[in-house]
């Protein structure tokens, strides 16, 4: 029999429904896997075994009564950016190291409503700022994958949702919540060989998610299959009056959309994504993806997104500007860390200097500068205008195509000690993912192949606003053709 930790979310749900497995057994298998592997992987900041077993017990009772919800008894990891009532929520920052929210985020409350079991809080880059999960105040996360022949080289899981992606890849959870501000779901999903979708801005409520850059932040799931992502997104999404940017739209049946097929769809290939520096194996995988979709009846069209090269610098004005404003609330007065000072201003300054890590400080300073008197128009307004042009590029593309296919990342996972010292080089990780955040579009990464060293590579599908259904249909077609079955070196039941 398949180990309980190797089941997909959909497979585990079916096994629970047939009573071949109890929710307590399923949860215990995952808690055992966490106990064995988390000391090394560091994918969880906080593990909540007692709560998880209690929820699993309640799930078994619900299953026995015959009133199971869509996620009853399914063990998940929750990115430690989602407030969970009564469970410490840190944003991987010292400044929130002991923060216990008195309320539940909308997304996690909907997962609980549907019966999910929470195993604990997944590690991330501090305040979701990063692409390697090395900026966490609770230590870095190790990618469970290894380059062939380099078992001792520690690779990064990507970020910021590195703990979520590593936990799902290593079979410590069936799925996880994550958030994506510039690629923070899709890039770690690609680096860890799992699937992840950032839905349209406004699809999931941001209420109770610790804010980084509010006009870019969006929650989504990470899981091992496209269908599992669809099941999770169906629970996570939906209108919430407590988020002023939440979209008042019905949530479609995403899981049903996965099997629609791609026949007749027009798939766009952005000319500007053909970077000179793109490694040959990533270019080849992209070509392979095009061929798969064509063979299933889609047509390909080259499109132009002329402002693509300005997306990264635009992001690195908009996101820090919003972050500097959002993070002003951490002042040592109402919650979080406090460092005493000579007066109130000194208390603020010492608290924030002690509480924030280097990358967070860097972004707050950049954001403060671009919003300061004399520079606001030259930087911030300019970036908002370029953001409008980036959106227009996509609006024009949607006249010609129904979805866009691209690589998720320009490289496979890199070593923890490689290219970390240059902030600008690190930012290039997000070159293919960031445009979806700036334009508010849904984007999904699906594991589609491996590099020469055996590391997973992802393909990315972008869709129109609120057309996640087409994204799921194309993602599923890629997944079916890729038949990705490679496994990470570090995993439960290995």
């Amino acid at each position, binding site marked *: 029999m398949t180990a309980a930790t190797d089941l997909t979310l959909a497979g585990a749900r079916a096994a629970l429904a047939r009573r071949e497995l109890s929710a307590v057994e399923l949860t215990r298998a995952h808690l055992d896997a966490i106990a064995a592997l988390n000391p090394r992987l560091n994918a969880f900041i906080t593990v909540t075994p007692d709560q998880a077993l209690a929820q699993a017990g309640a799930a078994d009772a619900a299953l026995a009564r015959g009133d199971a919800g869509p996620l009853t008894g399914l063990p998940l990891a929750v990115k430690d950016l989602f407030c969970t009532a009564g469970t410490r929520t840190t944003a991987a920052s010292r400044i929130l190291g002991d*923060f*216990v929210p*008195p*309320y539940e985020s909308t997304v996690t409350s909907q997962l609980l409503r549907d019966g999910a079991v929470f195993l604990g809080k997944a590690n991330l880059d501090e305040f979701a700022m990063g692409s390697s999960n090395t900026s966490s105040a609770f230590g870095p996360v190790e990618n469970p994958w290894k380059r062939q022949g380099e078992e001792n080289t520690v690779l990064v899981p990507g970020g910021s949702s590195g703990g979520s992606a590593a936990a799902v890849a290593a079979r410590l959870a069936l799925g996880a919540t994550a958030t994506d501000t510039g690629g923070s779901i899709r890039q770690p999903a690609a680096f860890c060989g799992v699937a992840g979708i950032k839905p*349209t*801005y*406004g699809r999931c409520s941001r209420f109770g998610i610790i804010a980084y850059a509010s*006009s*870019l932040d*969006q929650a989504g799931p990470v899981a091992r299959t496209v269908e599992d992502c669809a099941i999770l997104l169906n629970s996570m999404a939906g209108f919430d*009056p407590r988020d*002023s*940017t939440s*979209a*008042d739209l019905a949530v479609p049946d995403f899981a049903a959309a996965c099997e629609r097929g791609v026949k007749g769809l027009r798939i766009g290939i952005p000319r500007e994504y053909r970077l000179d520096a793109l490694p040959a194996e990533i270019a080849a995988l992209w070509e392979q993806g095009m061929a798969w979709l064509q063979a299933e009846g889609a047509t390909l069209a080259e499109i132009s997104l002329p402002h693509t090269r*300005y997306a990264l*610098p635009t992001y*690195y*004005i908009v996101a820090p500007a919003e972050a500097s404003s959002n993070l002003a609330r951490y*002042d040592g*007065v*109402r*919650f*979080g*860390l*406090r460092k005493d*000072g*000579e*007066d*109130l*201003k000194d*208390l603020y*300054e*010492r608290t*924030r*200097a002690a509480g*924030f890590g280097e990358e967070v*400080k*860097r972004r*707050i*300073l*950049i954001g*403060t*500068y671009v919003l*300061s008197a004399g*520079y606001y128009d*030259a*930087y911030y307004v*300019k*970036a908002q*205008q*370029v*953001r*409008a*042009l980036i959106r227009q590029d996509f609006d024009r593309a949607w006249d010609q195509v129904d979805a866009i296919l691209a690589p998720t990342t320009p490289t496979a996972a890199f070593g923890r000690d490689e290219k970390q010292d*240059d*902030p*600008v080089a690190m930012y290039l990780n997000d070159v293919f993912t960031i445009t979806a*955040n700036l334009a*508010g579009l849904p984007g999904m990464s699906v594991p589609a192949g491996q590099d020469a060293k055996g590391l997973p590579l992802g393909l990315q599908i972008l869709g129109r606003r609120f057309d996640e259904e087409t994204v799921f249909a194309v993602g599923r077609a890629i997944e079916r053709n890729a038949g990705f079955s490679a496994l990470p070196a570090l995993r439960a039941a290995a």
Partner: protein
Amino acid sequence: MSLDTATVRRVASLARLRVEERDLPRLESELNGILGWIEQLQAVDTTGVEPVAGGGAEALRLREDRVTDGGIQDDVLANAPDRAGAFFAVPKVVE
């Protein structure tokens, strides 16, 4: 546009971040690296382009103007580093 040490010190003060003098040169060079790279945006012609601020719909929804929350003083104060009765406590501000 390039930052000098005095500007880094001023921005840090605006951001309420204590920065030690010995860290200023490093920050100055890191911030200038990022700002120099961002500078390429000046090459984009944005004449007449309306800036976008939000991530979604152009107009935000308005809700009815009524009280929908409250009576949760203990929850609000639960994480306070220091409190005096029903208040957040801070060092004395006025002599």
